[in-house]
């Protein structure tokens, strides 16, 4: 049960990553690789602040802000200096590696015993269960720590998801979606497309860094390597989410990205338990995204061929 609740919690945390990737890849059609660096940036920023005694919620918010800056930087490199979007992301991601090391002062920063959001969830759990560490639900033993970590994460993600949904329906957010959909049109309606991309990438990387901040608190450390392959992970979640909800309606798409992230994490947890070598995980994730990108077109071609042959 601990494994299941843990997978859910991590899935929910990473759904913020999925929402960030949704903004860059789906709203703007912008292949933003900054994410690999900004998720670590969020983790590093929050971890250092928490280790220094800053309240964990504030530290998480600081992680969000740090991601905001990183994303805006990629946007500026792309729109103001005319650097190819993919390269702009790579530049910032590469630079962030050093920045993250500078922030942490070393490559791994443990948070054992520190006052993290998850430690607070644990306290809450202990209080709610009247001091007991666990309780039984049927034949399952459920630890208060796991349950409350999950509830707290769910609450946070729900608030952020609802906030994003609301934002994308404001005048500004609607213009942002239109920028990704048809930039010629939105320019003709008086919107500065470059500024819109900068703002969008800032929000995207802010969310991703927030996922990093929460992840560091959940797993109890920040590591300079933790961002590797995270873009692909987020993209896989978004693709699964789209398949789950099968709709382009904004609210459903956002909920779908979160659900996709949780489902993907659960699948991975099951596969690992079944004996999958953790070292192969990135390869499998990449192959999965490849298949998800290629299969729809391939299936369409096959069905067309069938129609022709019939």
């Amino acid at each position, binding site marked *: 049960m601990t494994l299941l609740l843990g997978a859910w919690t991590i899935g929910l945390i990473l759904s913020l990553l999925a929402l960030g990737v949704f903004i860059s890849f789906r709203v703007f059609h912008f292949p933003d690789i900054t994410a690999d660096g900004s998720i670590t940036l969020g983790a590093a920023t929050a971890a250092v602040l928490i280790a220094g005694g800053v309240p964990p919620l504030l530290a998480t918010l600081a992680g969000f802000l740090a991601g905001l800056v990183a994303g805006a930087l990629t946007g500026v490199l792309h729109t103001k200096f005319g650097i190819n979007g993919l390269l702009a992301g790579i530049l910032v991601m590469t630079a962030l590696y050093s920045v993250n090391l500078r922030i942490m002062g070393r490559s791994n920063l443990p948070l054992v015993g520190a006052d993290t959001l998850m430690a607070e969830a644990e306290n809450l759990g202990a209080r709610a269960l009247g001091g007991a560490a666990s309780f039984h639900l049927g034949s399952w033993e459920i630890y208060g720590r796991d349950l409350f970590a999950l509830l707290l994460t769910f609450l946070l993600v729900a608030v952020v998801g609802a906030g994003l949904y609301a934002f994308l329906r404001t005048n500004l957010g*609607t213009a942002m979606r239109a920028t990704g*959909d*048809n930039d010629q049109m939105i320019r*003709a*309606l008086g*919107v*500065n497309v470059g500024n819109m991309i900068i703002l969008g990438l800032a929000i995207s990387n802010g969310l991703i860094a927030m996922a990093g901040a929460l992840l560091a608190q959940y797993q109890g450390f920040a590591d300079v390597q933790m961002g590797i392959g995270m873009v692909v992970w987020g993209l896989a979640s978004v693709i699964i989410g789209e398949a789950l909800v099968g709709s382009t309606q904004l609210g459903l798409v956002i909920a779908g990205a979160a659900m996709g992230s949780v489902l993907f994490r659960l699948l991975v947890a099951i596969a690992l338990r079944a004996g999958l070598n953790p070292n192969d995980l990135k390869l499998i994730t990449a192959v999965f995204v490849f298949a998800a990108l290629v299969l729809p077109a391939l299936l369409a071609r096959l069905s067309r061929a069938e129609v022709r042959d019939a």
Partner: protein
Amino acid sequence: MLDLDGVSKTFNPQTANEVRALQNVHLGIDDGSFVVVIGTNGSGKSTLLNAVAGTFFVDRGAIRIAGRDVTRWPEHRRAALIGRVFQNPFSGTAPQMTIAENLALATRRGLARGLGWALAPSFRTEMRERVRRLGMGLEERLDNVIGSLSGGQRQALTLLMATWRRPELLLLDEHTAALDPKSAEQVVRLSEEAIARDRLTTLMVTHSMHQATALGDRLVMMHRGRVLHDLHGAEKQRLRPADLLARFEEVRRAEQLDESAAAMLERQYV
């Protein structure tokens, strides 16, 4: 209203592909005037429209709209003064967004976009009313995505969006060229209605001789980046497609003469 003062634009300067798209164009358009621009392929008529819209900056000359010098204004800033309908029906609307969302975007053309709701409930009534006037039954489909509509429907909506807030200047860039005849006729009628209702200053580029003679109160014929003819008033009203064809024929002959002269010179001297 609109003043082009010695405007020139050369694409790919000093290369083999150099194109002098606009050469010292002077054009003044009065408030409320409806000007039709016609010309052969490559005559610079679409370039003229894009120069006004700010798709690129001109090399020389000045552009003024409603008394403001917009020569160095970027496209999105000029959009506060200009409503635009493109040739491609896909260009003027956001296909993955709903009709209502597209219209909501148009209501804030040139205004700051903040954190107010894009689709306020009170706004729906007005939206419904104005979409109904298009006579396409789209008022019942406000929450459908634009991508599900036909080219004619999209173009009618783009026109509505371009004129939702009264623009100082309306630019129509061969906006019916990609439509089937029936839709084209419908969009032309809607354009005329909008222009007459709000007394819009309009610059319309067209390929159609019929539209060029039937619409507008002034006709500008362009050739090789210059204004060749500029017909006003009674002269414009009397103009028939046949007269226009004759003028094109004249251009063609002159061109041929030029070419044969060039060929002769080449034989003699090269």
